[in-house]
């Protein structure tokens, strides 16, 4: 298979214009670490953004960073850390989960729109993504958004690109809003709660005025005592005060322990990356978004029909669920439960043959599927970008 790795955007435009003229489908790639997410794409050549590299703008006082799409995420995070700043949405690193190697790129962070625990307080990738530059399926450069935080000029194509998994265009540059790193981080740990009580505690914490930035529950079925985690970040003075208030607020859920430093950081990384369900490796993994309070009932209804283990992030609104790869990998049961509760499910990890046979992303009702097909055609009339990766025909 031909692999294109343009070093400049103009070269990417030429490759794309040529592929469009020939009708050659392209697999769009960054570092390739998330290549196993989605339906197996039907490309005849690979177009990688990895050669489009480098930070193009960083203004700490304006809370903004821009980089070419192939810039390693690690380089972005290192650069921000030097100025005590960070990406607000806590991007997950699913390499261990997926068994992939390589360097995740910032462009793929935008294209996948996968956000970590801080999603509940600081928003998703798409909320911090304030500008994109892309090459559409005609080989034209299109910019949307910009480098300023408030911008309502024209249609917001930035949002369309976030989570489009390379199906609408090749992202060549992204601009993110960033936030200061917290002076101090502390986590309250409530041990021994069952799912329903845990989610009740998390929702109470998130509905408090204390700006909880992480709310996760690891059930007892994962092999240890159940752990309910609530994270507070901010200036030290404030963190002390808020821990005290939250402890008082959550007294009815039992005594809470305070975790700080490496142990707590490792726990949140594990939650972010879905590591509690990484093993055994043959299990498939569903990522389900629903209303927080409906999380436990949703998980339970799936468990009544499937062999499953799970944990919760986003105060119950994100359910990570592992089940058997046999048959439809639980798709029918998961989809039915999600339909009942409201929300959507993505099959994040499964063997290629499963991903080819069942829908990976939540199926859409026909009017929205029609819109999806037409938006695809509006960007990529020759249907050359990652055909079939999100939905058949897209």
């Amino acid at each position: 298979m031909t692999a294109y790795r343009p070093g400049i955007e103009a070269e990417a435009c030429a490759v794309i214009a040529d592929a469009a003229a020939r009708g050659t489908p392209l697999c769009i790639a960054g570092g390739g670490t998330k290549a196993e997410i989605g339906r197996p794409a039907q490309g005849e050549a690979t177009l990688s953004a990895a050669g489009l590299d480098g930070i193009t703008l960083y203004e700490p006082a304006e809370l903004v960073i821009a980089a070419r799409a192939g810039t390693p995420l690690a380089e972005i995070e290192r650069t921000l850390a030097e100025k005590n700043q960070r990406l607000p949405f806590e991007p997950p690193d699913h390499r261990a989960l997926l068994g992939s190697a390589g360097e995740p790129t910032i462009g793929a962070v935008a294209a996948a729109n996968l956000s970590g625990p801080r999603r509940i307080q600081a928003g998703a990738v798409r909320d911090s993504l304030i500008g994109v530059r892309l090459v559409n399926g005609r080989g034209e450069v299109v910019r949307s958004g910009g480098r300023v935080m408030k911008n309502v000029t024209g249609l917001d194509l930035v949002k369309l690109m976030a989570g489009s998994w390379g199906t609408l265009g090749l992202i060549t540059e992204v601009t993110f809003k960033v936030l200061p790193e917290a002076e101090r981080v502390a986590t309250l740990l409530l041990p021994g709660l069952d799912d329903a009580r845990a989610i009740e505690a998390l929702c109470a914490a998130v509905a408090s005025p204390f700006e909880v930035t992480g709310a996760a529950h690891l059930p007892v079925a994962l092999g240890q005592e159940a752990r309910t985690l609530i994270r507070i970040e901010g200036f030290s003075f404030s963190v002390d005060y808020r821990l005290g208030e939250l402890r008082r607020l959550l007294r009815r859920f039992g005594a809470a322990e305070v975790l700080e430093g490496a142990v707590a950081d490792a726990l949140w990384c594990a939650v972010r990356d879905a590591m509690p369900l990484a093993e055994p490796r043959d299990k498939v993994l569903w990522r389900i978004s629903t209303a927080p309070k409906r999380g436990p009932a949703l998980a339970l209804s799936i468990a009544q029909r499937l062999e499953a283990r799970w944990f919760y992030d986003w105060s119950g609104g994100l359910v990570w669920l592992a089940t058997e790869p046999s048959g439809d990998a639980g798709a029918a049961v998961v989809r039915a439960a999600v339909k009942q509760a409201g929300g959507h499910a993505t099959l994040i990890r499964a063997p290629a043959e499963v991903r080819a046979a069942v829908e990976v992303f939540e199926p859409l009702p026909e009017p929205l599927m029609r819109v999806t097909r037409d938006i695809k055609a509006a960007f990529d009339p020759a249907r050359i970008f990652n055909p079939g990766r999100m939905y058949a025909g897209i």
Partner: protein
Amino acid sequence: MTIAFPTPDATILARREDILRGLSRLVAPEALIVSEDERRAFETDGLTAYRKLPLAVVLPSTTEEVAAVMRFCHENRVKVVPRGAGTSLAGGAIAQEDAIILCIAKMNRVLAVDFENRTARVEAGITNLAISQAVAHEGFFYAPDPSSQLACTIAGNIAMNSGGAHCLKYGVTTNNLLGVTLVMNDGTVVEIGGEHLDSPGYDLLGLICGSEGQLGVVTEAVVRILRAAEGARPALMGFETVEDAGACVAAIIGAGIIPVAIEYMDRPAINICEAFAHAGYPLDVEAMLIIEVEGSDAECEDMLRRIVEIAKPYRPKTLKVSQSEAESAAIWKGRKSAFGATGRISDYICMDGTIPTGQLPYVLKRIDEIVTAKGLRVANVFHAGDGNLHPLILFDINKPGEMEKAERAGEEILKLCVEVGGCLTGEHGVGIEKRDLMRCQFTEAELQQQMRVRAVFDPGWLLNPAKVFPLEGRVAA
């Protein structure tokens, strides 16, 4: 009068009686406004210099009625201009003789509030403030707070992706919207999003938000509600130079502090507001900041102490940290009355470009030069943390040619915003006001790409058609 309107479609005008008869079969008699007198109330919005009588006004009460009207207009090729409260400063809700106004202000109920999941489902004609009021008894609020929040509807906020004074911390509409019920051009009703986070497939919610009523009509919305902070306290600082004020903002943010609001006023704005509100603003400074922090009393105290320390090297001439509710109210009173106070002394147009905050001193100097060269005056009041400028260009509508001069100055200011790396509009929207400037910010290929996406929803250009995109060079599907 420099903004052009397309020539009304003569075949529609000729069929007016037919169209009215058709509409009358779809909604209750009191929901269809046809008389000239009553239509007059809908001839303009917040951009009052431009007025056009609509063909008719429809005031539906349900999503089904909206769908029926949309289907009828689609089949009869009648243009539809969606309208909330009509507060658009960009002319986003102004229709024309061959278009109906579909006003959803009667659909203003709260349908469900879920404090545990932190969501509220509302009909889209509800006012922005009414959402916060409906959840205030539990200490919650809806975060985006445009100045017009008493009047403006959530439907209009979604159409324009409205911001407000507190978006540095809480984001704008698109960051606080979880779902919509959308009536599409042919009357199809779709649900996008819901009570959960993030969307399956393409982010259509993000696309709808800020689409200025061109992709469909939003009849219901699910918004995120937040628990309010325990308290808030502002500090007021006056500086001798614009540069000092700008550098102070940068230093505060650089130190890792994100205040909930950083409002900026220049000398003319301070003078106007002080004369009106007697807020105790300093009259001997070039620039003034209102910086507000949130939290418990002790947290606010701690944060403001840090901020005052950071501000010292920039030699604030005035420094007032609020010590009471009454002092906080006084500090905000002048700022909140800025537009009203300006309107009392002069006609004005309010611009809305955004700039990288590092360009502040340069841009303010250039704005002054641009406006002075036209023989006019300008007052600046804006959100300094996010660079969203609101120059108020003062003019006298009774002096022939002054309004045109003000409009031209406004255009030059917006072009300047784009030149320095910003954009034409930060929160008011493009509407008709900035439509013809779109080519300053976007290339032809970029506009074509946006219009192709638009065409997915409205290939016949029937939805709010004269807005956003320059009238020449439009594409259909």
